[in-house]
């Protein structure tokens, strides 16, 4: 059976070539294939028997999509400049939409420091994954696959407790801020263990802190990390970049004051509060620790301060008065 006559290859050859191939095939006796044909033994032979007439959905490399012949990809950008062109050619609106979508996509212009780009690379649809798609798993008794990470009982428990998926938990920014050795003196002797204080935040207004203590470092770290994720609470943010006004926190002898700052100010404060602000997604902040500066109490006091902000809506309801934010009133609201 000639492969030229059927299917896709035919399109690739000119009629003359097809005629030549057909003549060649007609000249070869079909019985010769049976008597003389043999399987290849060279090193580049295929590992399976296939006449290569079909493209298997997962064993073969998929053919590239053909470019749309109607689209001139080089001049697309140029045609966007003139508004007159758009009106003349109705099809240009399609290109305009596609092109603006392409420009708005954070993946298009990716900067190494831009976390949104990395976020976009990790989208669930899998359309932009840098990795090859996973091979399908077969329910064959002879086959055994390695166990996935989601089998970890602690992680499963955390997922059940928080209602987050594994993907979301992995995306949480976790940072260990304090770690030291603590000792319990008993009559048998000293029992030492390791203490960890960890913060967790989704960089979008959620922040949590957790403490862990165990004789094994990994155990303590895991305890602290999971408690931090479990204790994540919303941190109110003004314009998604700073806090509402000024807040104070106090734990033990540690007292601190955290204040809002204008756009572009940055997080100018000590490292512990800096990390917490990063994890919560706050970008403009100033803080001052006024009394004791114990690291553990500083973190706890900052957490208390950030989560205990009073919102203007609540204040307005409590006083029965109208509160208006006038920051975006001037210059036609174009205030950044």
């Amino acid at each position: 059976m000639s492969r030229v006559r059927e299917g896709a290859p035919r399109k690739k050859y000119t009629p003359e070539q097809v005629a030549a191939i057909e003549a060649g095939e007609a000249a070869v006796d079909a019985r010769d294939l049976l008597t003389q044909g043999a399987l290849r033994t060279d090193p580049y032979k295929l590992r399976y028997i296939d006449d290569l007439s079909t493209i298997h959905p997962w064993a073969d490399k998929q053919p590239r999509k053909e470019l749309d012949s109607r689209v001139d990809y080089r001049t697309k950008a140029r045609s966007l400049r003139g508004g007159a062109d758009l009106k003349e050619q109705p099809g240009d609106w399609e290109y305009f939409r596609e092109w603006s979508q392409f420009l708005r996509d954070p993946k298009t212009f990716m900067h190494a420091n831009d976390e949104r780009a990395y976020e976009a690379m990790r989208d669930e649809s899998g359309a932009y994954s840098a990795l090859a798609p996973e091979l399908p798993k077969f329910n064959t008794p002879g086959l055994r696959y390695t166990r996935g990470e989601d089998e970890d009982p602690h992680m499963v428990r955390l997922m059940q407790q928080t209602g987050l998926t594994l993907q979301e938990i992995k995306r949480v920014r976790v940072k260990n801020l304090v770690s030291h050795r603590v000792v319990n003196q008993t009559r048998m002797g000293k029992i030492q263990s390791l203490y960890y204080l960890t913060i967790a935040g989704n960089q979008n207004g959620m922040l949590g802190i957790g403490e862990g203590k165990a004789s094994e470092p990994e155990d303590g770290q895991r305890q602290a990390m999971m408690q931090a994720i479990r204790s994540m609470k919303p941190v109110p943010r003004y314009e998604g970049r700073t806090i509402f006004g000024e807040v104070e926190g106090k734990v033990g002898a540690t007292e601190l004051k955290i204040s809002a700052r204008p756009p572009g100010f940055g997080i100018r404060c000590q490292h512990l509060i800096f990390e917490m602000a990063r994890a919560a997604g706050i970008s403009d902040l100033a803080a001052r620790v006024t009394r004791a500066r114990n690291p553990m109490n500083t973190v706890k006091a900052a957490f208390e301060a950030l989560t205990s902000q009073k919102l203007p809506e609540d204040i307005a309801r409590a006083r029965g008065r109208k509160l208006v934010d006038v920051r975006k009133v001037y210059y036609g609201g174009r205030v950044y």
Partner: protein
Amino acid sequence: MSLVNLAHVCSHLQNASKARLGLTSIPLTNLHLRLMLGLQKQGFISSVQLGGPSPPLPEILREPEPELPQHAEEVVRERPWELYATPEPKDADALLNPRSAETVAEDAWAEVGSHGRKTSPSTTTTSSPSPDVPKNAARRRLWLGLKYWNNDPVISKMGLVSKPTKRIWLNSQDIGKIARGFEAGYVKGLTRPGECLFVSTDRGVLEARECAEKKVGGLMLCRVY
């Protein structure tokens, strides 16, 4: 104008709010009265009433039972909205407080005739002295209704800005700076949402923003948030 007594009032209001009291009293002075009316205008307290050592009766018990008109049932059936009293148009002071403690206080002073205060003719003619208010001026107190929202007191902090030993007077430009959140004249700006600063001026006790708007300066009294 004793700032010592004002400091006591500030601390007392903080303490009463922390103790979740619904009603509390402070000694009656002209300054206290003006400041409390300012607080009420800003929504920090719900009511200001003149009274004696014991709390005044609730408003419901003080008001006489309204007499029902004849054929009341028919009226209600036809015009049910008349069940709800429509507020009469009042002047600004009357709006602050249904019984207008200020008026009552002015009447009280007019009656006693102390301090050589000028008494406006309207107040002296219209009102009658309340039975709750004692004749002895030293026994009079202001009764304040405190407010709470979402399990939090509406007044969480209240403290003096001027001190008895160091009073601070500022002009309207400086007060404007403070209202915008900047420091001026050794007074920290209003940086918290909804923070208020009360100023004693020749036009009465005003909030800092009102001062900046009316371009009047004065003595910094206390900050509340």
